[in-house]
């Protein structure tokens, strides 16, 4: 042991290819290549496509960054889509009654409240996050539908719209700025900050984490809180982009976000995670959607093909 260098440690693995972690990049390039050839005449390779794909990926990415942290900690959050919808409604209502700043604060506060409830139930009452957030999904959706009587709440504040997803900064859509911001912060947190290590350790081996002095309950609480906050901001972006709050905004996004996270190489069992991978996961799905639309497929067909691709990608990633 002391004399010999282990074979396992002999090689530097800094640039080695990890199938499970890196399959997303291979898949992304492959899909781009296929569409570039097949959809050349439909104009797949154009600046318009580029911005469209990014814009489509933006809101799901914002949600999926928080989801990456949650799944890396071996939890799950099914309530993000409904929370986004409720946040859009709450923000729109507060905007019209009290003005810009209270509107923004109301949306953020909603995320904080729901995140704290989810977090407390998961971390301290020790109820499985699957159940807590499944219940919260229904509750948030129901409240949003109830308080609006199923009607959209219009947003007339143009400053809000310009800043939350409706405007551009130079040539760049504001939505994309939000996405880049979230991905950048998420990457730094997971890769470079102590909290990121605490998340990964909690997800992979909570006992080891506790024995290393990590308070795993607080880690769980915080990831659930962060994820809900992200979902609320995503809802506010929907509200800005669509100039209204509506309970249906964000419906079904939880599945897209989870798919992006898993495609991106984060383990559903926790312990490994990559925010950049998640970003490419969201991008891959947006690319596929966009390509299928160009190819003239309707929504139902898109859903089928998207489902097949997700199964394929995850099955391939399992190989190692």
């Amino acid at each position, binding site marked *: 042991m*002391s004399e010999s260098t*282990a074979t396992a*440690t*002999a090689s530097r*693995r800094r640039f080695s290819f990890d199938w499970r972690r890196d399959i997303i990049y291979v898949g992304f390039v492959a899909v781009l290549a296929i569409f570039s050839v097949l959809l050349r005449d439909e104009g797949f390779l154009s600046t318009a496509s580029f911005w469209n794909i990014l814009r489509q990926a933006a809101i799901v990415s914002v949600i999926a960054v928080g989801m990456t942290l949650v799944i890396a900690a071996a939890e799950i959050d099914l309530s993000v889509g409904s929370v986004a919808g409720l946040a859009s409604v709450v923000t729109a209502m507060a905007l019209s009654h009290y003005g810009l700043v209270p509107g923004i604060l109301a949306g953020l506060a909603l995320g904080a409240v729901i995140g704290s409830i989810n977090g407390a139930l998961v971390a301290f009452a020790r109820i499985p996050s699957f159940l807590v957030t499944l219940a919260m999904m229904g509750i948030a959706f129901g409240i949003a539908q109830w308080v609006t009587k199923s009607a959209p709440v219009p947003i007339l504040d143009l400053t809000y719209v310009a800043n939350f997803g409706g405007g551009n900064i130079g040539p760049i859509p504001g939505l994309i700025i939000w996405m880049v911001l979230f991905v950048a912060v998420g990457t730094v947190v997971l890769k*470079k900050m102590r909290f990121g290590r605490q998340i*990964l350790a909690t997800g*992979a081996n909570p006992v080891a984490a506790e*024995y290393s*002095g990590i308070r795993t309950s607080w880690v769980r609480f915080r990831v659930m809180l962060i994820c809900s906050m992200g979902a609320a901001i995503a809802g506010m972006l929907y509200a800005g982009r669509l100039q209204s709050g509506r309970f249906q905004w964000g419906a079904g996004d939880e599945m897209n976000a989870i798919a992006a996270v898993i495609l991106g190489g984060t383990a559903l069992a926790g312990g490994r995670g990559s925010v950049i991978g998640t970003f490419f996961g969201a991008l891959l799905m947006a690319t596929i959607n966009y390509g299928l639309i160009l190819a003239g497929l309707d929504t139902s067909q898109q859903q089928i093909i998207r489902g097949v691709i997700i199964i394929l990608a995850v099955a391939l990633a399992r190989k190692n």
Partner: protein
Amino acid sequence: MTAASQAVRGGPSAAPLVSMRGITKSFSGVKVLDGVDFEVVAGEVHALAGGNGAGKSTLMKILQGVYQLDGGTVEVSGKPRRFGSIHDAKRAGLGMVFQEFSLVPTLTVAQNIFLNDEPRTGRMIDDRQMVRRAREIFERMQVSVDPTAPMASLPTAYWQLTEIAKALAEDARVLIMDEPTAALAQQEVRALFDLVERLTDDGIAVVYISHRMEEVYEIADRITILRNGKHLLTSALADITPEQIVEGIVGRTVAMAAPPRRDCTDRPVVLSLAGLAAGNGLHDVSLEVREGEVVGLAGLMGSGRTELARALFGIDAITAGTVRIDGREVKIGKPGDALAHRLVLVPEDRRLQGLVLSHSVNSNLQLPHLGDHSRGGWVDDRALGSLARRLVDEFRIKVARPEAPASLLSGGNQQKIVLAKWISRDPRVLVMDEPTAGVDIGTKAEIIEAIRAFAAEGHAVVVISSEYPELLAMSDRLLLMRESTVERELDPTETTDEQALELAVQGVNHE
């Protein structure tokens, strides 16, 4: 040993690094520790010994802040301390090298060493500094481990080194090693001992928990023996003989009524192994079990007993040698093969492997019989019901309602269910791993009786047990396992009582 540790060996003049006085601790009214004293001085290796339930791990968990003590005092470097958490203990310089390794497999070696204590510039983790410092620690330990390797890619020995490095990174002055060699190969043990010597030269104290007497003599300066939650003695190892240690650990226990050994030499051989080797390290195992015979496997933890059971049952792959049952050679590649040849394993961990705890007593008993009592996919409830009733009677399972979940039963009754479940399948060869662990004394006698009765009906039984009185009471013959093989058959003088058996297993008095 070194000059530094020579000077302090048992010396009352040296101020203790850790001093525990009059420690008491109870769990739900049962006193586990009763006024225990224990101290460690800098630079010594202090062995902590005692039988199962003597209180060793509880004492160490108090020292690490996992449990809070009920009474007594803990002083570190002369200052009284009260550890409310693992964190407090770490701050006081106490490090634990865990028996069940507590590392995160998805992180790298360096990330594990500095987990939750990462070097940072501002709020960002400084990965480069982390790797450099990890390297420095490994250099100080004089071992070569790549700090950037993912933990999961490294073999067991490196996990242990990483645990030690982690403790050193936290500036631990006392290391607690609980059975550190259980999972190590011979030359790895050597390297670990060299490392322990270098650490003690630096003034680090080591509390060493091991069942292996040879190791204790090789590495420890002093030994403290606990018995039934009380401090029995502390002595320099130079002043104590192995016999005294064994007597201290074992004590004068009430011997279990050992039934007369059956001589089955004229009966036909049922199970016969020749040159068996398996992927789990087992090698050159040859043995015979005759009709009506219970053969016990004695040996230390990690001597290959469980590995033999797993290979026989087709859990770990057999790589060489032959298995014969009733003279016919059989191939066992998976548990299904073993069952087809009527070889059954009652596994070590009944709660995990033997029972569906949340299901009823009845359905547990019926589980292996569903195939025999169903037609076209429909389960014959009546036949299964009467089967379960018969088994409850036969094995004297104390249960108010057979519909109650098995989790409500005592350990002993749960074990009876496991036993009934498998014996009722009418196996030819029954292999049992620790059948009496965690079972109360009265039930133990019943289980032993059931096992012996089953053998007497003309079957072959192989029993593994770390509880020597039980092993002696069950077995007609005893085989000694060591280093993943059957070393030899113990002769009757070595199996007269628990103490003789312990000495034989430890390899004392045997040339």
